[in-house]
């Protein structure tokens, strides 16, 4: 089963929830798909690195001896990653989405595919938890190929996917294929506005969902009215607490220091399983 933890607004507590859930359970895989800013692994300081793999994307390579400069490749490329000049073909690798169309379009079979690194995938173990995360190369713009590769490592019986913030392509790629998505929000106007967008995305994707309100007690009550009106299950609340915030700031999973919360997270998993089936 794959449970993704997403949010819309950043900083609502996705990683807090994903790591707490993992730390409350036995034998889980924690997969951090926030490849721009992966943080979940930081909360497992005793982790032992198992392996590191490079993630590459295909990019075109032109055999100039066969190329007739006909322009079929650049005419085809909708991302403008190739430009055919009278004497040569220019390739802009950072614009290439790796669709492979230029090679198919080339009548002279002058285009083959090389590869370009976009990031790395790390795998580590901490106790009974396996942690997998991707790290996007600095300066790289496209996240989805790496997210897809990181998610491809999910093979456990129970996988928790920590997603990037937002509601667009990175988030869609990270949550796609989940059996359930838990949206973490905070009871503020910003939290609610972005939660609404995230819920609309999940509705389009037909992924079962529920909501966890973090930092409850701050802000206002509108998120509760919203959830009630829409009939969306509120699965857990974590109250605003200086202690939780301080533990988080140091990189400690708060359920380790406040073990009564482990039962609550196990209860959360039970509720999620019921809602997903």
């Amino acid at each position, binding site marked *: 089963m794959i449970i993704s933890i997403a949010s819309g607004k950043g900083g609502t507590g996705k990683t807090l929830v994903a790591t707490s859930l993992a730390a409350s359970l036995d034998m889980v895989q924690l997969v951090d798909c926030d490849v721009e800013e992966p943080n979940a692994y930081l909360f497992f300081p005793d982790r032992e690195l198992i392996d590191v793999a490079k993630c590459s994307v295909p990019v075109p390579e032109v055999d100039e001896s066969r190329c007739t400069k006909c322009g079929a490749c650049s005419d085809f490329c909708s991302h403008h990653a190739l430009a055919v000049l009278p004497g040569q073909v220019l390739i802009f690798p950072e614009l290439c989405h790796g669709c492979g*169309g230029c090679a198919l379009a080339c009548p002279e079979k002058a285009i083959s595919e090389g590869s370009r690194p976009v990031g790395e995938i790390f795998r580590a173990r901490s106790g009974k938890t396996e942690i997998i995360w991707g790290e996007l190369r600095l300066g790289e*713009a496209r996240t989805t190929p790496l997210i897809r590769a990181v998610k491809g490592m999910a093979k456990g019986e129970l996988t928790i996917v920590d997603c990037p913030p*937002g509601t667009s392509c990175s988030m869609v790629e990270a949550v796609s294929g989940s059996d359930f998505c838990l949206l973490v929000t905070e009871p503020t106007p910003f939290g609610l506005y972005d939660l609404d967008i995230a819920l609309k995305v999940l509705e389009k994707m037909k992924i079962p969902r529920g909501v966890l309100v973090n930092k409850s007690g701050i802000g206002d009550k509108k998120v509760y009215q919203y959830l009630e009106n829409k009939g969306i299950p509120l699965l857990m609340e974590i109250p605003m607490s200086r202690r939780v915030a301080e533990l988080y700031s140091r990189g400690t999973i708060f359920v380790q220091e406040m073990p009564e919360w482990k039962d609550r997270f196990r209860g959360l998993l039970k509720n999620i399983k019921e809602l997903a089936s």
Partner: protein
Amino acid sequence: MKQIAVISGKGGTGKTSLAASLAALARGRAVIADCDVDAPDLHLILRPVIKEKREFLGIKMAVIDPSKCTLCGSCEEHCRFGAISDHAVNPLLCEGCGVCKLVCTAKAVGMVDRLSGYAYISQTRFGPMAHVDLFPGEEASGKLVAMIREMARETAASENLELVLIDGSPGIGCPVIASLTGVDLALVVTEPTISGVRDLERVLGVTEHFQIKTAVCINKYDLNPDVSSRIEDICRENSIEVAGKLPFDQTVVEAMVLGEPVVQLGGPAAEGIKELWRALETYL
């Protein structure tokens, strides 16, 4: 005309609350651009009145005509984005490359424009604002960020304003890079947590990669003074100025609930932001 982008690496460090206050402090001098296109919240504080609306056409999308489709499956086989299944296109996964159209021998695939959202030029009580309404799940491409920034620059030029203030998105990927291109200053908002530190290091790597002048603001610096001083060390080592240190202050959330920039309410965070603004003015 100068451009400042407020970014963060880690989400939820206070970019938008800070940007709203900077907009208030720059009243009458700046155009505000909300470039956090897939979680845009600045409008909740600035309450823009829309003056002009433009369509945003995102990437093209493949459409399969079932009356022509011979169910050969060639499109699905060649699509590298997993966007085709059961001879139909999933718009959320389609990247608009057109490979399916290229390989379809029955000419059943067409590439169509898709309306992905709207971009607006609006008026707020602090000045003009460029912002978007991106439909849920659409690609938040650099193309849209570039469009918003262009609209903001046009407005600044026509209204003779000296500053474009950009509220960016979290992370270091496509929309962030598009928000940073060509700005005069990146203001990175961070917080004293181990996630904040790691994310700050990565985002500083990106501003360095693109050779963009950078300053840092530590929000809630008193939450963990040890981690805050580590952040200051990192900034010193990279010759980056810590332009502001804001204390934890409940007024920030109160202001958000009231739909006002926190500098309008006062308090310790507001004082810190005013000091930060004075530091930023020396850059301009």
